[in-house]
C-alpha cells in the first residue's frame, strides 16, 4: 500500500475501502435502504435461491443501488420458490414468487428503481405484514 500523501488521497482511499465495512454500516440502518430477503430453506435452495441471491447482489451493486440483501428461512411459500421479499424505504414489504433471473431483473429495473409493481406478487397474510412493520 502506498503512502497517504494528502487529504484528497485519504478521501479517495476511503471511498475505495468503503466496501470493506459497507455491509456492516448498511445493516445498522436497514430502514433507509432497499431490503431484499431471499428465502433460503431447502426448497428455496433446491429451486435456485442461491443463484438469485447472488444475481440480486451483483446486479444492484452494478447499478449502484444501496441495498441490503439478506437470506432468511422458509417463508412458507414452497409452491412458489424461489421467493424473495422486497422492502422499499417507507413501503410495506412485497413478496415475489417464482423469481428466476428474468424476473429478478424486472424486479430491480421496475419495482426497485421505479416503484412499479411487477408480476409475481404473492398475496401475504395479515400477520406477516404486521410482523414486518414492527421490525
Amino acid at each position, binding site marked *: *500500500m502506498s*503512502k*497517504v*500523501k*494528502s*487529504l484528497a*488521497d*485519504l*478521501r479517495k*482511499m*476511503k471511498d475505495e*475501502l*468503503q*466496501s*470493506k*465495512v*459497507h*455491509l*456492516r*454500516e*448498511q*445493516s*445498522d440502518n*436497514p430502514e433507509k435502504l432497499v431490503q431484499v430477503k*431471499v*428465502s*433460503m*430453506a*431447502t426448497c428455496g*435452495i433446491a429451486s435456485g435461491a442461491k443463484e438469485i*441471491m*447472488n444475481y440480486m*447482489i451483483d446486479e444492484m*451493486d452494478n447499478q449502484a443501488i444501496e441495498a*441490503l*440483501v*439478506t*437470506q*432468511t*428461512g422458509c417463508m412458507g411459500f414452497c409452491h412458489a420458490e424461489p421467493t424473495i421479499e422486497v422492502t422499499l424505504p417507507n413501503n410495506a414489504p412485497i413478496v415475489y414468487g417464482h423469481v428466476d433471473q428474468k424476473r429478478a431483473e424486472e424486479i430491480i429495473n421496475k419495482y426497485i428503481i421505479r416503484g412499479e409493481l411487477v408480476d409475481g406478487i404473492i398475496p401475504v397474510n395479515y400477520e406477516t405484514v404486521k410482523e414486518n412493520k414492527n421490525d
Partner: protein
Amino acid sequence: MAKYKNHVLVCGGTGCRASQGEEIVQNLNQVIEENGIENDVQVVRTGCFGFCEKGPVVKMVPDNTFYVQVKPEDATEIVKEHLVKGRQVERLLFTDPETKERISESKDMGFYKKQIRIALRNCGFINPENIDEYIAREGYAALGKALTEMKPEEVIKEILDSGLRGRGGGGFPTGLKWELTRKVEADQKYVVCNADEGDPGAFMDRSILEGDPHAVLEAMAINGYCTGASIGLIYIRAEYPLAIERLKIAIEQAREYGLLGKDIMGTGFDFDVEMRYGAGAFVCGEETSLIHSMEGLRGEPTVKPPFPSESGYKGKPTNVNNVETYANIPVILLEGAKWFSSIGTEKSKGTKVFALAGKVNNVGLIEVPMGTTLREVIFDIGGGIKDGKGFKAVQTGGPSGGCLTEKHLDIPIDYDNLLACGSMMGSGGMIVMDEDDCMVSMAKFYLDFTVEESCGKCAPCRIGNKRLYEMLDKITEGKGTEEDLGHLRNLSNVIKDTSLCGLGQTSPNPVLSTMENFWDEYVAHVKEDKCPAGQCKSLMQYVISEETCVGCTLCSRVCPVDAITGDKKAPHIINQETCIKCGACYDKCKFAAISIQ
C-alpha cells in the same frame, strides 16, 4: 477484492478472548471452508461489544443477529444453519430476563437501547488490526481536515466549543488543557496518552485501545498539531498485553501509510508515537506520577503547579489526556462541536463510557449520553439487580468515588451532579450493590485497595489510609467502639484535606459517603454488634433450633472443625468458640433448623 455477502463479527476483546473467542474464530473459519462458502463469508475479529456478561458475542451481518455466550462447538451450527440455510440459531439468541423472549437484534435489547456509542463507535464494528477498515470509517479524516483545512487555534476552539471534558476523572475542559500547552513556548513538547487505567473493574480504556487503537493515535496527532508537539507517548500498563499488541500493529500500519512520521499528508507536519510501559500502579494514573514514571523515576506525584502543560515530561510542556478523551476527538472534528454539544447536559457534553459491574444482570461496558440517570443505567441497561434482590447502593468513580443510594437514582449523571452528591465521575467505574452487601465492608474493600496503591510519599495518605483500614477492619470484626466512628470521620476529613495528590484527597470518600448514607449500619456494628446485611462473619452466628432439629447428625458430619455436637435423634448444638462460620451446616440442613443470628 472478494465481495462478502456475510460478515461474522466475533468479539476479540480481552474478556471474550479469555472465554475461547479465538477458538470460535478458528472453528468458524474451518466450518465455513468445509461448506465452501469462504468467498461469501468473512469472519472478523473486532474489539469489545461491551456486553461482557453474555460473552463471547458473535454478530451476524447483514441481518444483525446477535448471538451470545457462544462456544467454539457452536460454530458448526452457526455456519450450517445461519449462513447456509438462513435460519437463526434460536438457542444462542439473547433472552430478555423479564419477558423471557428471545431477541435477535442488539438494537432491541435493553442493554443497547439507551446507548449512544461515540467513543466506542468502532469497537465491535471494525477489525482493529486492519487500518483499512478504520480508514473506511472516515479514519484519519479528522486529522487530514485539521492539518489541511484548519489552524491549530481553530481545532482547539472546536474542542472547546464541543464542551468535551477529561474522561479520566478530573473533568477538566479538554480544549482548555490543549490551549494551555499550546501557549507555552518550548523547543520540544510532548503529547501523552494516559492508558494507566487503574480503577478496579474499569476497562473502557483497554477496550478502546483493543477495539479502535487508530482513533487514539489520530487524536494524539491532532493534539500534536494543536500544541506543537512532534512526539506522542502512550503510557500503558504492562498488564494489557492485547491492547499493547494492537497498538503496536496500529502504529506500524499508520507509519506505513504515512499517517504517522514525517510530513503527514504532505502538510509538513511531523508526528510519531512511542509506547511506555507502566507496572500497574494506580497512582501513576495521576499525571505528575505518570510523567515521573516515564522518566524512569519512582512513580509518585509532585505538587502542582507547575502543571505538565508548563513543565511535564523531561521538563517540557506536556499534554496529558486519557484514552477515552482522545477517542472522542476525531468524531468531534468530523461531526462538529455543535453536534457533540447537543448531546448531554448543560455542563457535561457528549457521552460517557461506564464499566457496569457488581450485582446487576447485565455486567459490561456501556456508553450513554451524559444526563442519563442511574436508574436507567442500572435497571434499563443493566437489567436490574441479580437474583431479584433489592438495590442498595452504587459506587461510582472507583475507589476515589462515593456511594450513592436509592435517593440518587433519578439524578442525571454528569460531572457536577455526581460531585454534588458526594461521589465523582472518575474514570467511569460503576459497582452496584444489593441488600446483602455490608456498607462498612464495602468501604473497607476500597480502603484495602488505596492502602495497597498509595505511593507512600505523603504522611496522611501513607499512614492515614492504613489506619482507616484498620479501624474499619476492627468495626467489621465487631471490636469497634462509638469513639472509633468519631475518629474515622475526623481522620477521613484530615486525609482529604492534607494529602498531596488526588489519590489521598479522595481515598476517604467511600468511608465518608457510606457514613453519610448508611450511618445506622455503622452504629449497628459498634453498638449492637450486628451486621444488618449479614456479611460480616464475626458479627453473626449459626444457631440450631432445639425444636426443629431432629438429630439427623448431618450437620455435625459436614462441620470441618467439629464445632457441632449432639446425640443421634437429639437436638444438636454449635460451639460458637470453635465455629468458623463457613455455613456448611446451614447449607446441608434438610429441616431448616439452622438459622443465622
